[in-house]
């Protein structure tokens, strides 16, 4: 059995239901994500269109994150899932340097790496990943890609030639596929990221990976003192209040 994921971008309507379901299911802390839906506006007025791309770990068959992990915290499950053992992780961030998709984050509460696991804990008890269940338009299709009769295999066969993966040139062999996406949605260079001009919030850069209040010394003291520092979202709030340039550029 090899589990795979397919998103039909023709169906996705950008409701972010999957994003929220993932956050709730996996208790993903503020400022971090396992799954996100990126919005892209294409074309020039009046010929424009908005496209939505859910992004998560691709569970690569040849995963650079697994290869670089010095302690096997990242490991393959028999069903093909690239899983992570947070008790093993030493927090070296090697995997964050290796994943070409930016799918891994440093959990500010546990100080360990984390990412989408295709909800391995749910799969174990025969359930679907939380994001699949939450999708109102069934744009998320999940199943065994080695079984020719599974929904996902049939979908892939039906859309032969139009099935894409992210960054195939990286030779990571993702088991996460897209249908209906174009170059602009999947290629980071094919779209612009204009600072301070966006739909709902400013596109910001996180200066701190992990909890801003959790400094180097705290990492050493944490086992004795516990971790009391709240996850600090101030950096977003500060930049969000800088609305002047935002408005100058036509933001709302």
């Amino acid at each position, binding site marked *: 059995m090899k589990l795979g994921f397919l998103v039909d971008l023709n169906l996705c309507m950008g409701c972010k239901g999957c994003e929220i379901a993932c956050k709730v299911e996996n208790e993903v802390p503020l*400022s971090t*994500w396992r799954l*996100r839906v990126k*919005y*892209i*506006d*294409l*074309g020039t007025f009046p010929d424009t269109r*908005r496209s939505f791309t859910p992004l998560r770990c691709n569970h690569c068959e040849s995963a*650079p994150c697994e*290869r*670089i*992990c*010095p*302690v*096997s915290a990242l490991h393959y499950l028999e069903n093909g899932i690239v899983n992570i053992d947070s008790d*093993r*992780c*030493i*927090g*070296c*961030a*090697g995997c964050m*340097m*290796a*994943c*070409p998709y*930016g799918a891994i984050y*440093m959990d500010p509460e546990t100080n*360990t790496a984390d990412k989408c696991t295709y909800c391995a804990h749910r799969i174990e008890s025969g359930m679907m990943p939380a994001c699949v269940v939450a999708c109102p338009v069934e744009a998320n299709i999940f199943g065994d890609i080695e079984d020719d009769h599974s929904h996902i295999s049939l979908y892939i066969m039906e859309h032969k030639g139009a099935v894409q993966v*992210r960054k195939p*040139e*990286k030779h*990571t062999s993702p088991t996460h596929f897209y249908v209906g996406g*174009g*170059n*602009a949605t999947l290629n*980071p*260079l*094919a*779209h*612009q*990221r*204009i600072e301070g001009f*966006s*739909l*709902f*919030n400013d*596109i*910001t*850069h*996180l*200066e701190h*990976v992990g909890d801003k209040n959790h400094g*180097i010394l705290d*990492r*050493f003291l944490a*086992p004795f003192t516990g971790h009391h520092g709240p996850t600090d979202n101030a*950096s*977003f709030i500060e930049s969000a209040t800088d609305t002047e340039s935002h408005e100058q550029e036509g933001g709302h």
Partner: protein
Amino acid sequence: MVESTINATQAVVTLDVPIQGLVWGSIITVNMWAKSIGTGVVFLAAFLWFRHKKDEMPNLRWLMPVLAFVSLNVFLLFTLIDLHQPYRMIHIFTHPHWTSSITVGAWMASLFLAIITILMVIGVADAFPGLGGKKCKLTAIARNNSGFYEKIMPFMVFLAIPVTTYTAIIMAQSSARELWQAPTEVMQMMWAALMAGSAALIFISGSWSKEARKDLALVLTFAVFFSFMMYMGEYFFSFKSSEAEAVLAYVHSGGAYSVEFWFGMTLGFIIPFFLGMSYMKSENMTLLRFAAILALVGLFLVKDVWLKIPQMLPLS
């Protein structure tokens, strides 16, 4: 940064999560920099002992391992403090994953440090016969096994090669940071070690023979020259993926880190090259020391920038 106008698609990201900034920052730079000194002094000591008589460089036998010991401990300390779970460092030894060059490097560096410690104890015990008094067993054992130093020295030189270059392999495994993945990175690490090693030894070479000092200056001059040429090749001419090219184009056009890069290049490579050349004629030790300081500072700056630039690649 890389957001040039893309007429073909006219695509703009309008909603996304905040993008993670730098993950490996200056702590890792200190790590690499200190490691270059720690391994570089071993290479240089071997080279000098091969070329000259030992009594031309009387303090080298004990000061080389002391310098290496201090640098390697700085390197390991900074490796540790960069971990988000520092106490779990032990997992690298109890649950090693051998496909990871982080694991292989940590094991080799630990072995290297262990052997350097032995060299240091022997070297210091021999250099200071009164040390520890007559009853000190450690110095007595060290003195009785003095010949061991020369026996393990070739092994040390051999081990110093992978210890100094394994960081390049970690970078090669960092598939998300394409600018690090250049094969030349291995040679760049070697040149950095020769540069840092010769610069560090210059400070203790005051009592050495002129020829030995000239050799040090020669290695420093060569190392900064070839290192500079390799950086230039990488910076301007190598063929990379479109993403890496886009980031470099942004830096070339005066974007973030451009000033730091050229400042580091001038300070650490161009000026020391001319100072090193002038030492060959003038034998002015002050100038050579100045070159050594600049080389160490410049190497740090350039390594820091080279570590950070590739992390600007957009990943989604």
